[in-house]
């Protein structure tokens, strides 16, 4: 067999296994409307996906992953609960000459289920772990929900929390915001000048003519917000220390949950998170996963395409290439569901890497 045929045969084997686990096969278009994906992922996606132009429909994107079309199909006419599987090419634009593939097959498994999220997390992880059994891959897990829960529990303004939540997936900006809200950096001279000037009345600060679409009212409202923010007390140092410790959390699951318990003493909101963590650990163990040695990294998932908001995982090769990855994306279904939502978790396997690790190609 040619390498492509071998890889496709591997993909078909995985696809059949996902169907045997109860998933319904679904198809998705290759050409997707770019606008939906860009609104969801942001402009950064252009560096990672191929955009082409349709003379009548405008910008179209070559499918960078299946999640969005599968969620859209489910929200339009899916059963509840539902399990889906798919097999097909995804396309990733590469900006570096390092030989990364531009197109490759993905086989995926997605669960849409309102009950027992921890059991669903464990089901996806264990199913993929079984299919990769015997291959030289290392699993790592994370949980975006930890950081989100810690941010939600901070003693600070809603505006600051919202700003931090927006940047959960952008570690640099998140760090800069934490430093500012914790009073670790001094305001810039221009910001101090603005605050000083605002004491004489905000309305008087706005020029008479405002160029562009952003209105004088919008500018005024943000100046007022900046003034209010300057008066807000800094995030307590102890809570900042918890954020730092949380982001550095790294170790096998039983050890990680102990650290969480410890942190919950100072931030009670983390107790509920630790409880969910335990429930997932039990669900994983029930499915035969060796949780004692399964790695947990709190920072895992922060550099992915931003939609995971709970459990995340990856199986990678010794040289860090991802053979399989996935996670929970409850919020995504709400954003694509036009008012409706459903908790969802899923994962994908790259059959080309599986075939390579088996020595088949």
């Amino acid at each position, binding site marked *: 067999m040619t390498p492509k045929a071998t890889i496709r045969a591997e993909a078909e084997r995985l696809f059949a296994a996902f169907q045997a686990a109860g998933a319904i096969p679904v198809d998705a278009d290759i050409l997707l409307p770019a606008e939906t994906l860009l609104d969801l992922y942001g402009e950064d996606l252009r560096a990672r996906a191929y955009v082409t132009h349709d003379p009548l429909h405008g910008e179209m994107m070559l499918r960078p992953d299946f999640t969005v079309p599968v969620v859209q199909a489910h929200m339009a006419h899916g059963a509840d609960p539902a399990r889906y599987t798919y097999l097909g090419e995804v396309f990733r634009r590469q*900006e570096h000459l390092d030989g990364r593939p531009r197109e490759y097959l993905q086989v995926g498994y997605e669960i849409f289920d309102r009950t027992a999220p921890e059991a669903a997390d464990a089901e996806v992880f264990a199913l993929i772990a079984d299919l990769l059994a015997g291959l030289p891959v290392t699993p790592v897990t994370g949980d975006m929900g930890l950081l989100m829960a810690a941010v939600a529990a901070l003693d600070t303004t809603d505006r600051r929390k919202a700003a931090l939540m927006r940047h959960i997936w*952008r570690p640099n*900006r998140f760090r800069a915001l934490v430093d500012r809200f914790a009073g670790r950096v001094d305001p*810039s001279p*221009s910001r101090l000048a603005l605050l000083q000037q605002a004491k004489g009345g905000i309305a008087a600060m706005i020029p008479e*003519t405002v160029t*562009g679409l952003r209105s004088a009212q919008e*500018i005024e409202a943000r100046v007022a917000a900046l003034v209010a923010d300057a008066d807000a007390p800094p995030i307590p140092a102890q809570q900042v220390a918890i954020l730092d410790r949380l982001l550095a959390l790294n170790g096998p699951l039983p050890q990680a949950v102990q650290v969480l318990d410890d942190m919950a003493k100072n931030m009670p909101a983390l107790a509920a998170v630790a409880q969910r963590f335990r429930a997932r650990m039990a669900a994983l163990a029930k499915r035969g996963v060796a949780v004692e040695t399964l790695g947990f990294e709190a920072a895992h998932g922060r550099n992915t395409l931003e939609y995971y908001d709970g459990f995340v995982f990856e199986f990678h090769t010794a040289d860090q290439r991802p053979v399989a990855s996935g996670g929970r994306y409850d919020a995504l279904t709400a954003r694509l569901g036009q008012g409706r939502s459903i908790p969802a978790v899923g994962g994908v396997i790259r059959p080309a890497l599986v075939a390579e690790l088996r020595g088949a190609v």
Partner: protein
Amino acid sequence: MLKIGVPSKGRLMEQTFEWFGARGVTMRQSGRDREYAGAVDGIDGVELVLLSAGEIPRELAAGRIHLGVTGSDLVRDKLADWDRQVAELAQMGFGHADLIIAVPAAWVDCDTMDDLDAVAAGFRAAHGFRLRIATKYHRLVREFLTEQGVAEYQLVDSQGATEGTVKNQTAEAIADITSTGETLRANDLKILGDSVIHQSQATLFAARQAGWDVEKRATLTRLAGMLGVKAGAI
């Protein structure tokens, strides 16, 4: 022949000719003034190719010219992994311009990239679409904004008169090159203090993928000697 691509008109062409001339390599347009053919005196084996400055990065990447003079901004923007495709032989000290981000001067609440990010979030909430930044430097600007962690913006293409897009309400901000800032001020725009994306100047590049046979390498060594630049990277 070792082909060297040089901007085909304007100040950039004149200054390039002066730069080479001061180093004993005389370049001139052959034939009539509007004819895009050139000649080189002072060294054998070098052929002058007059091209639009915007096309020189592409010609270098393709290896159709061995050397090329163009703005460092254009090479970085048009070529992915630019330093693996071309080598920088000399910064020539003219054609200086900064690629920056500018917003309406009336945005008294917006002085930094941090502000721009917060403004973008508020703008999307108020208007239902992502804040538009007009530019022709898509790669450089996008990479900068990614690195800065700015979200909820979109780049809209503008190949000219970019400063006017804000007034015309086809963009909320711009990313463009400026040398004096005069056009920005005339269009009621101000530069964000920490938004210098790239400081560009005319630069002599060598194409890594061009056919570098023994003869062309020897020509390059002689030329580099006259120009006082190191060509060892090629």
